[in-house]
């Protein structure tokens, strides 16, 4: 079951890509765990997660073709 991860800002530098196709691990929390295991520097960053263009703070179940975006804060002006 493939899902797409999209990264913005500095998170792109950490992951080395602006998007990744991965197999869904089931829920958002499990996804965070495997992504951070692979890219440990993410653990030190702030970000908010959006599932299919909507912010979520709950541990929702990810389903096929979902798009999970990782948005960090920007400070520049």
């Amino acid at each position, binding site marked *: 079951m493939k899902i797409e991860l*999209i990264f*913005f*800002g*500095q998170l792109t530098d950490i992951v080395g890509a*602006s998007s990744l196709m991965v197999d869904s691990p089931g829920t958002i929390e499990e996804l965070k*765990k495997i992504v*951070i*295991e692979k890219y*440990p*520097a993410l*653990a*030190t*960053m*702030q970000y*908010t997660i*959006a599932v299919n*263009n*909507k*912010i*979520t*703070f*709950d541990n929702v179940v990810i389903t096929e073709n979902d798009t999970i*975006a990782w*948005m*960090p*804060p*920007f*400070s*520049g*002006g």
Partner: protein
Amino acid sequence: MIEQSERYQRQTMLDGFGIEAQAKLAQARVLVIGAGGLGCPILQYLAAAGIGHIGMADDDKVSYSNLHRQILYGQEDIGQYKVLVAASKLHALNNEIRISVYQQRWSQSLAIEFFPEYDVIVDATDNFASRYLINDACVLINKPLVFGAVSKYEGQVAIFNVKQNDVAINYRDLFPNTPKNEEVLSCSEAGVLGVLPGIIGVMQATEVIKLITGIGKPLINQMLHYNALTHSMYVMDLIKNTTRPLNFPLDFETFLNTDYTSLCETAIHEIAIDDWIPIKDNLILVDVRELDELPRIHALAHLSIPLGTLHLHLDSLQNKDIVFVCQTGIRSKKAAALLKITYQKVYSLSGGVKELVQKNIL
């Protein structure tokens, strides 16, 4: 009279705009905080569009490194206060509008005194301390906030604190805690493509005009992300954050006493080995190296938690005084910064295991 004005004819002739929308702009009072990369195009377009009263705030002077993106300023303005140069440029552009100048860094007391005089606040600043201060003030004083921020080739635009379907989102719903300055690179550290704040600033000005005139669908409870390299836009719907505690000040007194600048500074206490030895029994030693990195620590009681898994152990480290160690003192600093967001008395051991070996402590 606005009806007689030739100046705005190209927009008053628009279907859905007309002299009614122009009259709303003429009545509107907009405060733009920051007269830099974002502020320049915002100010220019708002003045050109005929916003009746524009306030602008900035304590900075024009420098050469500003000129590639801060298009209100020229070489002859180097060393001049930005707001003074900007005010004269805007006056030359449109002398039918009123311009107020605040030649100071924005503060809590300025927010409390002057936010009530404006209908819309625009965040065009370049640092988190100001952004959180402005956000919190807009929540407390109940003012719409048009937010914009940039990073290298990317930007964000959003409208906060405007009720839609009975919900008003603010910046802390997205990012509850003030990020530390070193967690997120600023323009001076990471760079920024000159046109980028131009694009984002113009988007902010567009949202201000939409908000005031009621045309179109403003980015209320949404954040737009723009990438100049791919011209891609990503819009996400924002929701109220009820699962995490929001730590914004609930009253004016707490707001006035909040030190936003130090909230965004990481006070990572790097501790030298000689200073650590006398107090080492009071601190939990946490090795954040990978489990196969040598030499291992044998002579000292410690926990082994690789940096990448530290986030999984936050609860067990709560309220404990900790000194992090790694091979050379770099990862331990990151670990300390990560914990410093929520916990107290966290140190990073300078020099790391390498220096412990040299000093024969391992």
